[in-house]
């Protein structure tokens, strides 16, 4: 019979194993040691090497899975190809294809089934290890008609039958095979077999352990901890050879260990608070000259904190001074992000037409925009940003790849800018480059093919990025790429490789459900320096100093896994792991880690959605009972919420000089009137917001479009008196067709289609209800369209562009400005508040100086009397149009010559003020009204004034 030892939780398991190995001879290859995981083998070898002092042939040290594979292969001659979860899901889908099926018809296609298939596979594997037979499963699940879950028994039976028939194996079938055939195992070649550090065993594991327990030269070492007695009770029950049991007794390695460790708690509201507190703690240990070596561990139960720890805490050390062994989700890597953008782009594409927004999201990814061209990295970057800038000015939301590749004028401009004598660059080369980039990135993915072909395309893309961009410069790129290529290999070899998704968007789903969750290993050199490990990686190991981060209940032990196919109660009845078992397991390991240490620092997050771990609660409660208490520190950030007042900007001599020759447009004056600082940044420094590609057609685009149509429509009529027959709606419609085609291309779907319909309807209404009615009542002679006017008045250079000028039957000249809005309020003058002699009232009462400026300019250039010029807006954006959409500067329509002249005074007064070197540029007087949405808010310090927050 084997010996079973239970050592205290404070003991060092590895030392105990080494103790059972005995003298470290040159050749220990006939010793076999099994731990639950892989890491302890390194530590064990180090312990043995220290004892021996020279090289040796080490014992066989296996993780449990390696042990099973070893027994199966080497002792039982087991064969059969191992399958991956993707193979499994593919096989399960064959079973699923026949009705009635799990989840009714919700998951009928392979695309839809896949995420379900992955979970199904996991649960079937658990069922198998639980030792449940199909009949039992059917009985237990029979009542679960909900979601057709009673069918699980059918899937269970058929799946494993198929595996068997096809000679395939899974982790569970291998384990079951070994456990079932354990009687055949001849383990005599080993002088000793040590199984150490096990805790939770499935019924199948137990069968194997039972067999090993009957082997004389086997030793089982368990470490005490919460729930262990329940876990190994079966090993003790029914065994009367208590003489061989060495249970719950002191062990060699526990000698000299004291009671409990000193525990320090640190509370923070977020991840970084923990990390900065960890940094401070590490630093103080370093300052005290204490070692931070492999006997110290930083435990990260969640990989989310890995990079904050790496950059904000481990930066205290040289890279050689620590070792990270932790899986990091691929979903958080830049390569995955790139694939995500690409598949989103593809999901929305129709043929080669792609959404502009999605296109730029992809091509502006650093890995794409830094693709080299003739050895240079700036060319692609400039190319895509220039393309973005150009497209931002165009209305279309969808672009054809071919259209982008045909932008010769743009290529020429870029080529001219980037060429030098030593590095000439041609437009043709740029075109070829862009086409080649499309060919190697986007195009291959546009045609949905098999999953295998899809994987192959990912592989090609990864190599493309690696070969052609600067991505490889990131120290972790090769690791990320390697993992992705590994996954590609698995897909290529999988049963599922020949399947095709019904829906092209499913590739993005596949990326999320299959590729994203896979972990990139960070395998460091395990025996060197400060250790950074996941919680499970600390299994079976002891450390003197332990730092645990993220000890919040949602991470440690983590939330209850919802969405299980087999409900908890039934899992319990079927002998499967329940969430309670899982929590117990985590608690056991956590406890082992703490108990084995001398000094423990536990960091946790507490905020409105997170609470401290139940394990901390337990420790605190235990301490309360023992009248003991751990120090509890709290992370608090420094905070100061005062805001700075926007400061005036002095007018320097050179600015004043520049302003003397400045050409004042109506927009510039309007801006100055509202906020002088804005005027300064916009017109003096010339800083403007960059135009960005948007998904939607913006108001500005619509405005430009309407202006363009009206200009082209009336252009031939300049100098004539408008006749009814001139207002030809058919002509207007064909013009609209032409302008839309020019702006949006031939394919005018979606919002563009609706916009065109609306434009047609509204401009037809404009002709019929507004223009026609005016022409019917008076003569209208068209004098000009989009006319640029400028003049020098009192030494000031003024300018503007007038949408339309006409002389009407009343002998007056009408200066019209089209607005696509409906509301004239922002443009009006509040005459009651307005006092030309009081500067303060100008800003408060004048909506816009546009019309008075036109009036002034036109009278200057034409010599027309001010009183005979009628400036007006034409509000095309009203629900119904008629002649009343034409409104002037006052609500009642009355604007006298005196009023006009007063406004001219304002214009000239403002110009004078702007040119006055003594006057500073002042901030807006009404921050609430003027600041939200202003692009200069951060510079000015009014970034706190946001729309909707007032």
């Amino acid at each position, binding site marked *: 019979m084997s010996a079973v030892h239970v050592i205290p939780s404070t003991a060092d398991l590895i030392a105990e194993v080494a103790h059972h190995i005995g003298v470290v001879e040159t050749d220990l290859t006939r010793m076999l040691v099994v731990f639950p995981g892989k890491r302890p083998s390194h530590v064990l*070898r180090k312990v043995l090497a220290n004892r021996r002092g020279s090289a040796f042939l080490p014992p066989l040290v296996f993780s449990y899975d390696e042990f099973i594979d070893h027994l199966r292969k080497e002792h039982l001659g087991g064969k059969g190809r191992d399958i991956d979860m993707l193979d499994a899901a593919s096989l399960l889908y064959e079973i699923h294809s026949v009705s009635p099926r799990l989840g009714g018809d919700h998951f009928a296609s392979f695309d839809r089934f896949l995420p379900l298939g992955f979970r199904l596979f996991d649960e079937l594997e658990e069922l198998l290890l639980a030792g449940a037979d199909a009949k039992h499963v059917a009985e237990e699940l029979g009542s679960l008609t909900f979601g057709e879950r009673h069918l699980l028994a059918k899937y269970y039976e058929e799946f494993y039958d198929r595996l068997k028939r096809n000679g395939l194996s899974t982790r569970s079938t291998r384990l079951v095979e070994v456990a079932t055939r354990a009687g055949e195992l001849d383990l005599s070649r080993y002088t000793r077999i040590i199984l150490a550090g096990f805790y939770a065993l499935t019924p199948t594991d137990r069968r194997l352990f039972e067999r090993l327990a009957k082997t004389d030269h086997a030793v089982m070492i368990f470490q005490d901890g919460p729930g262990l007695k329940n876990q190994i009770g079966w090993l003790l029950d029914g065994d009367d050879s208590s003489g061989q049991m060495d249970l719950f007794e002191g062990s060699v390695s526990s000698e000299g260990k004291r009671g409990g460790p000193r525990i320090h708690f640190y509370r923070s509201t977020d991840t970084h608070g923990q990390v900065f507190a960890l940094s401070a703690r590490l630093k103080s240990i370093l300052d005290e000259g204490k070692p931070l070596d492999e006997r110290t561990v930083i435990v990260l139960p969640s990989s989310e904190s890995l990079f904050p720890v790496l950059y904000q805490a481990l930066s205290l050390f040289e890279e050689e001074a620590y070792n990270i062994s932790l899986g990091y989700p691929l979903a958080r890597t830049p390569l995955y992000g790139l694939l995500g953008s690409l598949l989103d782009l593809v999901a929305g594409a129709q043929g080669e037409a792609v959404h502009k927004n999605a296109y730029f999201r992809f091509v502006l990814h650093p890995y794409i925009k830094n693709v080299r061209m003739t050895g240079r990295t700036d060319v692609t970057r400039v190319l895509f940003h220039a393309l973005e800038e150009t497209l931002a000015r165009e209305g279309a939301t969808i672009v054809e790849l071919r259209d982008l590749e045909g932008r010769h004028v743009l290529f020429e401009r870029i080529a001219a800018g980037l060429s030098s004598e030593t590095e000439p660059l041609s437009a043709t080369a740029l075109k070829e480059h862009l086409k080649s980039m499309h060919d190697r990135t986007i195009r291959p993915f546009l045609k949905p093919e098999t999953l295998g072909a899809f994987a192959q395309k990912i592989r090609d893309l990864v190599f493309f990025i690696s070969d052609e961009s600067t991505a490889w410069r990131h120290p972790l790129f090769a690791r990320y790429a390697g993992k992705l290529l590994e996954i590609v290999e698995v897909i290529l070899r999988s049963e599922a490789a020949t399947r095709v998704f019904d829906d092209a968007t499913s590739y993005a789903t596949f990326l999320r459900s299959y590729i994203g969750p896979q972990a990139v290993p960070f395998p460091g050199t395990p025996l060197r320096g400060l250790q950074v490990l996941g919680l499970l990686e600390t299994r079976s190991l002891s450390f003197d100093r332990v730092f645990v981060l993220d000890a919040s209940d949602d991470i440690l032990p983590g939330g209850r896994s919802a969405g299980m196919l087999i409900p908890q109660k039934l899992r319990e009845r079927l002998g499967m792991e329940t969430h309670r078992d899982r929590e117990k397991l985590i608690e056991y390991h956590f406890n082992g880690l703490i108990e084995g240490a001398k000094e423990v620092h536990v960091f946790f997050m507490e905020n409105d959605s997170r609470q401290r771990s139940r394990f901390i609660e337990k420790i605190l409660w235990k301490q309360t009972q023992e009248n003991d208490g751990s120090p509890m520190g709290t992370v608090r950030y420094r905070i100061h919420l005062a805001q700075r007042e926007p400061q005036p900007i002095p007018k320097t001599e050179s600015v004043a000089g520049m302003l003397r020759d400045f050409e004042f447009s109506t927009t510039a004056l309007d801006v100055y009137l509202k906020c002088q600082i804005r005027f300064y940044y916009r017109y003096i420094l010339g800083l403007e917001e960059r135009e960005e590609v948007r998904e939607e057609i913006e108001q500005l685009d619509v405005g430009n479009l309407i202006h363009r149509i009206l200009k082209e429509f009336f252009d031939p009529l300049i100098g004539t008196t408008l006749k009814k027959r001139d207002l030809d709606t058919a002509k207007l419609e064909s013009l609209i067709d032409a302008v839309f085609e020019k702006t949006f291309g031939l394919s005018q779907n979606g919002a563009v289609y609706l916009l065109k319909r609306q434009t047609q309807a509204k401009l037809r209404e404009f002709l019929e209800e507004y223009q026609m009615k005016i022409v019917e009542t008076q003569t209208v002679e068209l004098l000009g369209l989009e006319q640029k006017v400028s003049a020098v008045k009192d030494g000031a250079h003024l300018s503007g562009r007038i949408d339309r000028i006409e002389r009407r039957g009343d002998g007056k000249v009408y200066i019209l400005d089209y607005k696509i809005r409906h509301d004239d309020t922002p443009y009006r003058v509040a005459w009651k508040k307005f006092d030309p002699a009081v500067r303060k009232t100008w800003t408060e009462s004048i909506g816009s100086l546009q019309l008075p400026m036109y009036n002034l300019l036109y009278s200057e250039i034409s010599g027309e009397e001010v009183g005979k010029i009628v400036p007006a807006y034409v509000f095309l954006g009203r629900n*119904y149009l008629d002649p009343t959409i034409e409104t002037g500067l006052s609500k009642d329509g009355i604007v006298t010559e005196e009023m006009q002249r007063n406004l001219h005074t304002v214009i000239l007064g403002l110009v004078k003020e702007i040119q006055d070197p003594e006057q500073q540029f002042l901030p807006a007087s009404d921050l609430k009204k003027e600041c939200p949405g202003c692009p200069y808010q951060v510079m000015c310090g009014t970034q706190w004034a946001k729309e909707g927050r007032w």
Partner: protein
Amino acid sequence: MTAFEPMSSLLPKDSEITPPSVVVVDASAGSGKTRTLTRRLVQFLLSKRIPHNSLEHVLAITFTNNAAMEMKRRVLDLLKEAAQGNEETLTELSTLVSLEKPEIRTRAAEMLETILDRYGEFQVQTIDSFLARVFKSSALEFGFPPGFDIVIDSRPMLDEAFEEFAGGIKPGSPSAGLLLDLVELLVLTRKVDARFHWNPYRELARQVKNLYARIVSTAQPLLEQNRSEEFEANAARLCALVEQLGTMLDRSSVVPHSRFVTYRKEAQARRFARLLDLQFPNPPVLKSKSPKIELAKFLNASASLCSEIEALRADLIGVHARMHFEPYIRTHRLLRETLDRIKRREAAVDLGDMTLRLATFVREGAVPELYLSLGETIHHFLIDEFQDTSPIQWETLKPLIENSLGAQGTLFVVGDMKQSIYGFRGADWRIMKRLMEGAYFPSAPPEILNLEMNYRSGENILEYTRKVFHEIVPLQVMSGAAQASGLASFRQRPRPDAKGKGLVETLVFEGDTETRPEREVILRIIGDCLSRGYRLRDCAILTPENEDVVKVSGWLNEAGYEFIPFSTLDIRTRKIIGELLALLRFLDSPIDDLSLATFLLGDLFAARLSNDGIELNTEDLRALAREKRHSGSRRPLYVLFREHRPELWERYLESLFTLTGYLPLYDLATEIYKRFNVFELMPGEEAALVKLLEVIQHFESRGQNSLAEFVEFSEEISEDSDWNMDVPPDINAVRVMTVHKAKGLDFRVVIVLLYDVPLRFDRVYMEETPEGVRLLRLVKKQAEDNPSLEKLLFDREFNGTVDQLNKLYVALTRAKDEMYILGVQYPQAKQPSAFLPREYFGPRKKPKMREQSEESENRVPLLHPAHLRREPATAERLNLEETQRGERIHAILARIHVVDGTVAETVRKAIEEEEKEGGPWPGPEDLESLLARFLSEPSFAPFFEPREGRTILNEREFAASDGRLFRMDRVIVDTNEVTVVDFKTGEEQRDYGEQVRNYMTILSEIFPGRTIKGVLAYVDKNVCRSVE
């Protein structure tokens, strides 16, 4: 310590609880509602008499995460006290549980252990998380794969649905036809001078997104009303009648009323919406100017026509109100299929939709199945803040509770209808009212408990509130509004030690938007409180709206008081964050001059330069931009900066510029933090700076890590608190918040700022009918002319008034010691200043506070070490194929112990064995001939010969003296010598020798006394090199 009333006077003992039972605790602010609920929960957990009371059968529901956590803490604390033998706690619990004290103590200890052991079953949850758990456990039934997400914000999915849907709109497509109809309807339902939608698609999307929450929040089916034809027909008839009347007028000699002339014009222009806006003048004539006989004749003849017009107009107003949202509801219906597909594809559902699906499901009687999937049955429900329940939540919970009551279960709710202020989020206090009236569970008539003792405020404050709501408000508001939620009838007693305590000062004055007199008043009050010993942190200013928080914060800012504006904690309102985001924008797009200028002209850059002893004249930088503008250069600003200040560019920006090419976002951000030493240079901004790192980290956790995407994300307006910095609870600063934010909180000194403004109503009205719910747009001016709408208008006003009064109640019940009410009067309304008693409530002399000791908290020191950048990798290419090839060659060679027979046969056999396990070699290369050639090389032959006493160790592991493990390709152990052969593919490399020498050292320790040889065997080169 506050002396609480004995629980026994409030809660029945467990022996007196006879399930099924429904208990409603109706209590006012500060009366210990949560305390009562906690006691009830502990009572249930400890009792031996209450059936089905084990942990997993009891569920306590709250409405916020904070409340859930607070309640858990309270339960744990109470159990700990009992388990430790706290006499007071044991005495209290012994009045609730039929056990002796020692047994209570033991059971409390056991229960504590149980809870800590089975924490996942300790169900104190928010209603949303409970429903999410139920939904997730039944995901399969709803067609969602396991592990799907529940998202709060539905907008991104709606956007996606719209985008996808838009793709299908083409000339002639069915969806285009339907949408064009909707666009026409959109025009029809809108006013004459309303905004025309050039881009109606955008408007439809915007409105549907706005309405979505309402669409999914109604528990009843949403009725679709296709009434546009009816409207058009009736409107046409109205026009015809008006014209008929006009013709009559034309033929008579009476003088038409000018308003009729206008009305007729609008009718002729068929501007239907306008006809509803304009009052129809009845009679349509100017009586004073019309000949009398003619007038009488005309009036007589036209009376019925006029009445018909009036009636038809009134009717049309009703139809119009019901039609307004029609385009959006129908758009939503059109979109539903796409939206569902996206939800399933992305394995995500939004909270609103989830609740709706669940409600529909439980209504269909699926409760037992749900419980089966959930794995446990809830027998006892305890609900906190019950007045905040929404109809859809109630529709989902009700069948579950019904099921429990049918199985000896109980329901215990606590709430205060007077504090129902979340109507805008769908909360409906009338559910609580109906529950109290026994409307829901006939099998268990409700027992109503009232908590009358107030534990929060001094007596004078209670008296003030009583006076407002009992004496003044009922006389001033519409009938019944003060009674509806219990405001006119609540009873509160001060705790014994609060008698005569507390003060309230009301200051009512005329408002002035220019001078803002309230500013001085607030600052004076704070100054006075400070002078009497209060700390800034004792004071809170409550405002009606978010914008007032900004305004008040500005005043405190100017006066130099520290403050925490709870509505504007978004880090993007900090200048430093704006500058950092500008830098990121520039790095993403170097042609973005504005972003670069924003950073270069900002505080951070200046601080860094000054710290480094570099003088920078801002004007120089500005001059650079000016120069660019002046010269009309197209070169980006950064190029000019690089040329003018190369030393600054190289030192501060160049490396960031390069790193942007390959560093992931988080790495880049930490690099920037290091480069500009942000924590050191901007110590006051620590909270904001940390939050930015958190935001970036969370952003990346969504699988997004491109800088461009983050820049876009940072510009989105988010309604959630993702960007909000954490506020230390102990910070000595005045709290400024809206009344909504203040709910559930209390402060020693409260300044309540009230403005007289007319009540504002939501124009979207949900009309409940037996068949379902209709969405209406209620415009007061029109609705007054339609009797059915008038009733709805009244309801809306009534409910709005109740909401406003409740909000006032919440505001007036936050103070513990002192309350200052500032009623700022404006002419457009009289309330709420008219509700405020002008007299002073409190002691003649305002009390002085004793010096207060600061609570000591163990603050953890923080360290922001400089980030150590890893050097760029040097490998230029992924050598995956080469690696795989090398591994395959090694694997084949590992299968060859000796050449037994011909080399070709030996190699073929090894390859066959390898292919059986590792699958066929995918590469095009013929490995067989390569290896055959290699093994045929005479210099290698001796290593593959069988020899007497020779042992071959292929791929064997050896431990070095420091424990490190080495796997050697081939170790040939002969009697007197040991040879290690290391196979290499590819080119020769110098450091390979070092590796073999290390192997030789290991082997010399294992095989002492034997000659150790080392060989490097280059497979591709067919070369063999001895290692010395």
